[in-house]
């Protein structure tokens, strides 16, 4: 990735060197199928053996009025022959399917980068909708970039003529025509896409054939046409990678698979209670197709019922799971308190999005850390762990299940809109390498009588399933008496129980060691991050280290409780920088816990950090 973002001009154009990585952005109207195009280009990239990272960016509106600026949907992919951890800073190539897509994206394009535009969509009407006074394809305003404009709409219509589609349906094939051209540009095999189209349109073979014809036509256009600018075909060699079987995975898929794996490792049936919300719904969709793994999914009437049903299922001996995004998590708050009080295992997945309130439903943010760690009434301690990438979400989900069961506690997983939607190559894990952590249920009256709130060495209480003979007991949200679990409002008892709940959760930190992603255990500066900022922080630290600076990258998975050694580790650095997509929530937590002078670097634009932004902040601190 590094070379792509740092090279002064874009590759592909006349330059004879093959770049290490390339950033391509597909942008069009939300009806143009850009996410699908990007997804298929991603698949082709993965199959070509390149490392990659993607960033889908789409509007909150289902179908905003066609051609408008707020209806633009974009998909960016960064791919190359070396380790890729971000979706890239500035694109090298922008494919703009209409004036609005050009207008909203072109300023991001690297100087000298290539614009591929569908001139057929640059009509008077569309120019007005995109608020252009003049046609930018004709008024020289794009002279900083290379421009390749031709009538993709007309070329598509021509290519699908034999299939007798209506004009509207025929134009829908534009995205496949464009994908065909992109496949030519990077010397890719069309067959996997053709197979996919056959499968997708199995019930309407004429649509499959029309789309394939458009794909082939786009490809042939690149191969045979005299393009207006001297674009040459590029072949990026595969990235070096560990030997093994790979696939691409999005965060939502990885979380779902990890939860299933976690339930299986625990030997438990899974119950998932969910309520539709962007960007968390994908997890409900994935899990609802995995019934053979003893998974029950329940689309509840609201967020509260979703978590309440999951708590009920955990009480009855299943692994209860619920998932949502910021506003929905807020609604679940009281029920989380119930799970904390009744000490039942529960996994809550929070796919964060821009807030507060409805905020930015389709944009990414990390602003729910306070909500996750602190956001409940009473002293309500709850473990919180965060995934740093789509693939990492798999292991994070398993870890959440393990903690929930071993400590009889709800656990929150933090991901975000970026992780949920973005895809990256994933080395398929060897499941036999995962140690099972079988859940156990109390099934007999222990010596000394039944004590539903007795504690084991982890301070966890026994899990007792209704249906077990002789162990009938009552639990609830009212303060419990130590050991017996009876109602008890007594002052000493509340103090003791509050401390027990706190200590149980703090005990999870025992044996958790914070590692250093890059760098040494002592030094001038540590850049400390969490969640999806891993990629840009990692690359920024690498770049600055290449310039000879003493900088380390520490990335925290266990947000609460924090790993046992983190305080000591942080005290080994002269300075600490905490880049976050919020106004400084982890920064505050670190200051509070360790009295260290952590400095914030905040971005709250709904967009992931650029490497260059973090690089500049690091250099500013070292100057």
């Amino acid at each position, binding site marked *: 990735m590094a070379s792509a973002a740092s090279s002064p001009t874009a590759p592909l154009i006349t330059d004879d060197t093959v770049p290490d990585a390339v950033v391509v952005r597909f942008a069009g109207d939300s009806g143009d199928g850009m996410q699908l195009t990007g997804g298929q280009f991603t698949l082709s990239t993965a199959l070509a053996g390149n490392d990659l990272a993607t960033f889908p960016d789409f509007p909150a509106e289902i179908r905003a009025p066609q051609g408008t600026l707020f209806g633009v949907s974009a998909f960016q992919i960064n791919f190359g022959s070396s380790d890729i951890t971000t979706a890239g800073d500035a694109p090298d190539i922008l494919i703009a399917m209409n004036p609005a897509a050009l207008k909203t994206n072109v300023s991001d394009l690297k100087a000298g980068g290539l614009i591929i535009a569908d001139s057929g969509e640059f009509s008077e009407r569309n120019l007005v909708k995109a608020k252009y006074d003049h046609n930018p394809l004709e008024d020289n305003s794009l002279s900083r970039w290379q421009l390749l404009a031709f009538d993709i709409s007309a070329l598509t219509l021509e290519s699908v003529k034999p299939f007798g589609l209506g004009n509207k349906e025929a134009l829908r094939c534009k995205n496949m025509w464009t994908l065909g051209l992109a496949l030519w540009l990077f010397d890719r095999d069309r067959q*996997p896409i053709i197979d996919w189209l056959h499968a997708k349109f199995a019930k309407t073979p004429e649509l499959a054939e029309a789309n394939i014809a458009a794909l082939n036509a786009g490809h042939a256009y690149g191969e045979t046409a005299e393009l207006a600018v001297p674009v040459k075909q590029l072949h990026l060699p595969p990235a070096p990678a560990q030997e093994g079987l790979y696939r691409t995975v999005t965060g939502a898929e990885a979380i779902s698979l990890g939860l299933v794996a976690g339930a299986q490792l625990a030997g438990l049936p899974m119950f998932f209670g969910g309520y539709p919300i962007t960007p968390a719904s994908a997890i409900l969709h994935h899990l609802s197709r995995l019934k053979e793994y003893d998974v029950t999914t329940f689309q509840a009437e609201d967020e509260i019922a979703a978590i309440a049903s999951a708590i009920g299922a955990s009480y009855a001996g299943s692994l209860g799971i619920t998932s949502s995004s910021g506003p929905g998590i807020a609604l679940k708050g009281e029920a989380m308190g119930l799970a904390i009080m009744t000490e039942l295992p529960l996994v809550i997945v929070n796919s964060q999005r821009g807030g507060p309130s409805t905020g930015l439903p389709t944009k990414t943010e990390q602003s729910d850390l306070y909500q996750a760690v602190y956001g409940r009434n009473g002293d309500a301690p709850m473990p919180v762990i965060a995934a740093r990438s789509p693939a990492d979400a798999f292991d994070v989900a398993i870890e959440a299940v393990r903690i929930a069961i071993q400590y009889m506690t709800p656990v929150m997983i933090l991901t975000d809109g970026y992780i949920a939607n973005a895809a990256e190559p994933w080395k398929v894990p060897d499941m036999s390498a995962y140690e099972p952590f079988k859940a156990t249920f109390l099934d007999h009256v222990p010596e000394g009588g039944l004590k539903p709130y007795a504690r084991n060495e982890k301070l966890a209480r026994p899990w007792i399933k209704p249906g077990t003979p002789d162990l009938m007991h009552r639990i609830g949200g009212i303060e419990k008496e130590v050991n017996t679990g009876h109602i008890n409002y007594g002052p000493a008892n509340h103090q003791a129980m509050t401390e027990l709940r706190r200590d149980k959760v703090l005990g999870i930190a025992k044996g958790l060691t914070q590692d250093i992603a890059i760098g040494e255990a002592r030094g001038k500066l540590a850049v400390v991050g969490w969640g999806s900022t891993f990629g840009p922080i990692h690359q920024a630290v690498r770049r600055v280290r290449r310039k000879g600076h003493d900088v380390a990258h520490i990335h925290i998975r266990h947000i609460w409780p924090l790993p046992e050694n983190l305080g000591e580790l942080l005290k080994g650095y002269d300075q600490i920088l905490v880049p976050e997509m919020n106004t400084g929530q982890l920064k505050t937590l670190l200051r509070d816990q360790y009295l260290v002078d952590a400095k914030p670097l905040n971005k709250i634009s709904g967009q992931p950090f650029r490497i260059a932004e973090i690089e500049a902040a690091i250099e500013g601190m070292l100057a």
Partner: protein
Amino acid sequence: MNDMTTLTKPRVETVLKDWETDQEVRWCPGCGDYAILKAVQRTLPQLGADPKNTVFVSGIGCSSRFPYYVESYGFHTIHGRAPAVATGVKLANPELDVWIVTGDGDGLSIGGNHTMHILRRNLDCQILLFNNEIYGLTKGQYSPTSREGTRSPSTPAGSIDHPAKPAAFALGSGARFIARAYDVARQLPDVLTAAYNHKGAAFVEIFQNCIVYNKDVFADFTEKKNADDGQLWLENGRPMLFSKGSKGIALDREALALKVVDVVDGDWAGAGVIVHDVTNRSVAHMLVEMPFGAFPMALGVVYDDPIASFEQAVVAQNAQLAKGKMPDLQKLVGQGQTWTVSAREETDAADAGSAGSGPEL
């Protein structure tokens, strides 16, 4: 009556004492809840219910303390959410007998949404809604079932909003079993038994006397002296008679509404009195809408017409979807279009076998 029920569970012999816990009951002295608790504890042995397979789930409020006093499994949850918790319990283990205990505030105000959805889904459970037309635990504010003009700490000049009708709400939500009784009614165990025997969501509205904040609000029909004229006890296959058989409920065919008719010399048929059919949904709607005063209070089993229950359907669909598929975690994580990186860092073409299932991007 309940054709769909296949009661395969073995009867367990218990006595009332077996259903009492060691916890001190903390309702106000004289509270109607005591009578309901006793009725439930008396009925459970008659049902042959098994304490280990019985779960009482409640929300918040006076009524919701109920689970602490029944020697079975019990879950005192959060305000209004008992139906949602119970749904998870029953889906996780359909073998359990699930009872939900709620009140007019818990079940119709903060939890009205969940009450509606558990009924339309038809989860197999018994929902006992203790209706006392007041908030007791928070000290006397008017509730969603309080009559217009109810003076309370939050409505010193009298409440303005129109009350909800629990049974009508339940029926409108799609309930397949509706019954009504009151706390000290001797028929309450029979009503509870019918609810238990109904496979699906059984909604029972129990008028409960809050002697502190809303004393005797139902006296117009519960008091002994008012019982004959004020209570219409419904029995399947029997004419709808009250006032010692001197009055009955008939259909006013002109107005398409119910009317009270006099019955002379026991000739109820001649007076056009309706024979109660618990599967008649149209009549059930009319019975739960009868304005008290002009009509008696319809009590007993108003409606009982079972259909497949939610958890049965979920279990059946899950089994159908899983049929013939072997769970294989290794295969699952390796699904979609895959590629292999060999030792020499070269890539092979897409794995043809897994490519067949199509990419999942």
